[in-house]
């Protein structure tokens, strides 16, 4: 795989068009899914706020939105002194759309560059008449096109919404989200050059995103609290994009910061790309262990060895997220009277907001951690579809043991994640309210959601056992449950229907007492599904790699 002499002609545009079409073909579902979801999310934000808040409610929310804790999560918030629906949505929800475009962009670029090299597909492609830099250029081009599409989609969602905002600031808002995406496409292009593993490259780009979020958060919090480090927000591409201040100042020039940053990073990435060997990274792979650790001797240990490193990042993430969200508890209880009635009711209403908010966070984290649970089941299937299971099963390992190891790992890891999120939430809530009992309340409140996750993941296991191709169908159950839990009551659906959501059925402790019936039923049902998956996998043929 060593590169021969470098040719000047390697920047040739040969193969650009076919490669772009190849990307379009591979992403024919993925790309529209991202664009449409982000557009719908923007539509949901502005529609919900318009419908929920009359001008008086909006006015009374200014204290809430100008709080330093909210600035930490959402951003600087321009024009809140004369608040409008548009300014509210831009000030509070822009971050979420920007995180969305960032994730979309760096994963797209890495998927079509480093992942292709790692899998060996790139070797075959590059043996054809195609410039060395074409895959990277095409991936960046595709990401740019995606971001433009998302920007327009967000703008159109705004313009077409019941709020009827002005068109030009709507476009600016859309473009500000797209500009962050563009920046992170370039970040992905660069991290893809550094390491030989697509997973590590994504992790590095995600770390840059987290860093950008934290810098911006600390800076904006400092500004809101009158502190001295407001300039930190200027170090973050998220901060730059938010300083366009759509519907308030309508600055266009901050877009150039992200655009320029993206160009510099992309140029840097292209430079490395044209100099390095195919499949090589700038950072050399460190040699690992010559012998396996003594404990790596059972299927259970193998699952831990494979999934453990990722889990430790998740544990840190939910602890941090829980602490930040939990520490808003005090603020929530002060602002509850200003909130729109429907929102307040979601979290227990003015009388029970503290417990209500902590319980709501438990449900929120249950929804988040479920992603991990279902991804475990996906990884179980990946072991078979990627051809690694064959040689394991040719060893003295029972099929039932294998499925059980993954199922139990997913259960234990989900429990640990919920516990960690509960710990964070509890700590934050206790400190911000001065009520230490919230710690155990939050921890318990998170942990009682575990049976819902158990049921969800065992649905995946049962599907895997019988119809492995349908393993992903459990995501539909997840999506329906999330939709009902988050939006069911807001949309005025029957409570009976909403309670069908896995995330609603158990109830939000400490606000509600947990529904022992649901807990028992989910646990038993999960056991049955596990048994079904176990039996199914024992009797079916292994799918060829």
């Amino acid at each position, binding site marked *: 795989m060593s590169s021969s002499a470098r040719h000047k002609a390697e920047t040739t545009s040969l193969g650009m068009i076919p490669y772009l079409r190849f990307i379009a073909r591979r992403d024919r579902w993925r790309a529209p899914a991202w664009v449409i979801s982000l557009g719908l999310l923007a539509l949901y934000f502005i529609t919900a706020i318009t419908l929920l808040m009359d001008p008086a409610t909006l006015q009374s929310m200014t204290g809430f939105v100008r709080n330093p804790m909210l600035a930490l999560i959402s951003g600087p918030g321009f024009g809140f002194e004369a608040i409008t629906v548009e300014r509210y949505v831009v000030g509070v929800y822009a971050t979420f759309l920007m995180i969305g475009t960032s994730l979309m962009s760096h994963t797209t670029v890495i998927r079509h560059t480093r992942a292709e090299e790692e899998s060996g597909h790139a070797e075959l492609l590059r043996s054809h008449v195609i410039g060395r830099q074409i895959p990277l250029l095409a991936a960046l081009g595709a990401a740019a096109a995606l971001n433009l599409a998302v920007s327009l989609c967000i703008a159109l969602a705004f313009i077409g919404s019941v709020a009827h905002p002005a068109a030009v600031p709507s476009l600016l808002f859309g473009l500000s989200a797209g500009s962050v995406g563009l920046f992170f496409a370039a970040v992905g292009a660069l991290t893809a050059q550094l390491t030989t593993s697509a997973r590590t490259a994504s992790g590095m780009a995600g770390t840059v995103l987290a860093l950008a979020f934290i810098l911006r958060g600390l800076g904006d919090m400092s500004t809101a609290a009158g502190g001295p480090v407001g300039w930190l927000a200027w170090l973050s591409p998220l901060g730059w994009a938010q300083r366009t201040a759509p519907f308030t100042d309508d600055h266009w020039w901050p877009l150039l910061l992200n655009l320029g940053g993206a160009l510099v990073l992309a140029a840097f990435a292209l430079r490395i790309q044209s100099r390095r060997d195919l499949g090589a990274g700038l950072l050399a792979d460190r*040699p690992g262990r010559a012998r396996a650790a003594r404990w790596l001797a059972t299927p259970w240990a193998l699952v831990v060895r494979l999934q453990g490193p990722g889990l430790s990042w998740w544990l840190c993430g939910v602890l941090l997220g829980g602490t930040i969200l939990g520490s808003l508890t005090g603020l929530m209880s002060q602002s509850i009277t200003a909130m729109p009635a429907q929102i307040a009711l979601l979290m227990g209403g003015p009388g029970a907001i503290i417990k209500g908010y902590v319980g709501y966070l438990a449900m929120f984290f249950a929804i988040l951690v479920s992603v991990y649970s279902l991804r475990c089941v996906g990884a179980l299937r990946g072991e078979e579809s990627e051809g690694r299971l064959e040689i394991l099963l040719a060893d003295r390992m029972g099929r039932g043991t294998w499925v059980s190891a993954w199922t139990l790992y997913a259960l234990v890891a989900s429990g640990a994640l919920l516990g960690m999120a509960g710990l964070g939430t509890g700590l934050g809530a206790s400190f911000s309210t001065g009520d230490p009992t919230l710690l155990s309340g939050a921890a318990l409140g998170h942990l009682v959601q575990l049976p819902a996750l158990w049921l969800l993941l065992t649905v995946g296991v049962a599907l895997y056992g019988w119809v492995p191709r349908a393993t992903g169908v459990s995501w539909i159950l997840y999506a329906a449950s999330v939709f009902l839990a988050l939006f069911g009551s807001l949309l005025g659906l029957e409570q009976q229907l909403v309670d069908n959501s896995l995330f609603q059925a158990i109830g939000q402790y400490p606000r509600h007492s947990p529904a022992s019936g649901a807990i028992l039923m989910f646990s038993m049902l999960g056991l049955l599904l596990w048994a079904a998956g176990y039996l199914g996998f024992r009797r079916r043929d292994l799918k060829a790699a």
Partner: protein
Amino acid sequence: MSDIPAVNLEQVTKSFGRKQALAGLSLRVQPGEVHGFLGPNGAGKSTTLRILLGLLRHDAGTAQVLGKDPWADAVELHSRLAYVPGDVALWPNLTGGEAIDLFMRLRGSANPARRDELIERFDLDPRAKARTYSKGNRQKVALIAALASEVELLLLDEPTSGLDPLMEAQFQECISGVRQQGRSILLSSHILAQVEALADTVSIIRRGVVVESGSLEQLRHLASTSISLRLREPREVIEVLRGTPGVHDVHSREGMVRFSADQEHLPQIMQLISDWGVASLTATPPTLEQLLLRHYGEPGTTSAERK
């Protein structure tokens, strides 16, 4: 060593949907023998091995491995056999050394000293992450784990397709050692020299059935010997030969007469020739390649025969 066959398949069938992969396949590997398993791509070799491993369940017929049912007794059997797939997939983040240890421990018959010796022998860097391994290096990982295990039966599915000639030689040496210890080996391979060097018996599979089985000597008997001869004086022998039973493909060029002769008619043919005043004669026994081409070359081989 008992008399129970290491592998015994009788009239085994297996279909994937409407596609029949095995159509009444019979195969017997005697204890202590190296059994070569040959056939074109998609003939059903891998399917057969996967049935022997209990990864697939056969539809009909009898399948026994070391006297047990490969599906029902899979786990128990797997401590007595080792498997090397043709395309080894490993976990990108585990090192080769970790994967070898894991496989050996899961099989439960680890010999650490042998492991280190084999790593040395196959020149594998056990500290490198599997992601950086070539196909050959991934194959070495599976080979080392299999050869370091003290098992009765080795199932090898094109185990050296990614190895260089030097490593191929090491492999053949290892397999000879394994045979001397009286273990049984089922070796599916495309490398005919390897099979000729190692195998005691050979089975040829085509479109899901074994079409030929026996020792190399027996198989050679089935095929014809190529004979070329030069006569001291020109003579009209072509028509005579064409009329002789057991003689095929007669042609002559520049005084050299070539034909193939069936093994069973060889004595009579030699008798006939001896009267002609032969200046030189060479008789070449059929190579494995010729044996195979007899079966591969038949029309229809390319039709849908996938694993």
